[in-house]
């Protein structure tokens, strides 16, 4: 079986790897690139634990072939940390106890980050709809929703401050 060579950008860094044409982005990220933040919960698009962004759009990496990401920009949870600093969403998930086993957490973080990028001040209903593609079987959703609300507030405060400066 011949493999495909994929050149792409992941979290801003150029990356190249070879894989079988039927391999999913989820498997390549975990097993070839070493980014194990993406998790496989279901492999069929239902749980969202494999969420990534592709050219800024949120999707399930289990439903993307690696061959498709040639020349594109992939974003994973690992890219949310900037200069060794946790992202405000990550801080807020810790502070608000929005995780237990943590399997679903990277997917929730990537999905919540995608939401806040297009809507800096979402309502609770908007948050719940935006996270409907992510399942958590231990924490319950209230704490997760609250963590996103707190983070969105923090982030708006910060962006106001930087605007003033």
């Amino acid at each position, binding site marked *: 079986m011949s493999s495909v060579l994929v050149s792409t950008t992941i979290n801003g860094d150029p990356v190249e790897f070879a894989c079988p*044409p039927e391999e999913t982005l989820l498997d390549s990220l975990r097993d070839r690139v070493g980014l194990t933040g993406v998790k496989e919960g279901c492999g069929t698009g239902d749980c969202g634990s494999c969420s990534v962004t592709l050219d800024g759009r949120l999707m399930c990496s289990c439903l993307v072939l690696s061959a498709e990401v040639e020349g594109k920009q992939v974003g994973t949870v690992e890219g949310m940390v900037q200069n060794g600093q946790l992202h405000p969403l990550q801080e807020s998930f810790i502070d608000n106890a929005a995780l237990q086993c943590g399997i679903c957490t990277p997917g929730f973080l990537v999905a919540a980050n995608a939401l806040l990028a297009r809507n800096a001040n979402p309502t609770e209903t908007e948050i719940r709809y935006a996270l409907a593609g992510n399942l958590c079987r231990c924490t319950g959703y209230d704490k997760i929703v609250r963590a996103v609300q707190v983070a969105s507030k923090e982030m708006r405060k910060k962006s106001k401050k930087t605007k003033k400066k």
Partner: protein
Amino acid sequence: MRYEAPKTTKEAATFLKKEKGDAFILAGGTDLLVKMKLGISAPDLVVDIKKIPAMNAINHNASGSKIGAAVSGAELGEHKGLSKSWPGVVEATNLIGSDQVQSRATMVGNLCNASPAADSVPAMIAAGAKAIVVGSTKRRTVPVEKVVTGPGQTSLADDEVIEAITLPKRGKRAGDAYLRFIPRTEMDIAVVSAGVNLTLERGVVKTARICLGAVAPTAILVPAAAKAIIGTKLDDEALDKLAAACSAACNPIDDKRGTIEYRVRVAGVLAKRAAKIAFQRAGGA
């Protein structure tokens, strides 16, 4: 498996034509990759259509609209002009799956997967949508209701691919709507669904198309339901006739998601509600 990403629709059709094994078009992959994962499909060739410029374009002007087969639900929802002219088609497509699924799922993939419960299909059929079909040697245009022939079955030949969906010219006094019934508020498969598209003249329904989903092996157009409201101001009597015609047209399955009796009844109720929304959107009072 081989992966190809051609730059033109003709090339895509030629790849399909030449392949001796199982060949599949890949649009958003939200059905195809699930089937590959579950071992239901094992393609020898996958032809990705997302690098074809004509498939990624939305054209919307006074003479009608054309939506490329690779346009995602999210992109469709972000198009202001289409959302204004065809809110029913757009809302039906936007009901498909989560935000993650919306970034990928296409109307044409929804159609060609040929599930009786596909959400965008009744809305497209009610709208009078047509599919532009490209084969390795010729092109043709077919009404959307002629594409699906049964669960998982389409009328497309082995070398044919849908390039785009067209929607007719839209007048001022026109409206469409789509409603589905699901046991949850998000992320579920329609138990019954209804798409309604109508135009008005002096406050009276002039033309109408009504299509039901999930109540027969394919989405079904119900001309008798349209007839029941044409020439009326959508009064209660007309609405009751519409509901009765819809219920009479159902040929549903009985399963844990809904009994036959339930689906037959709810089809009428949903069609009524969708008709009221479409009427209001058309400026009816």
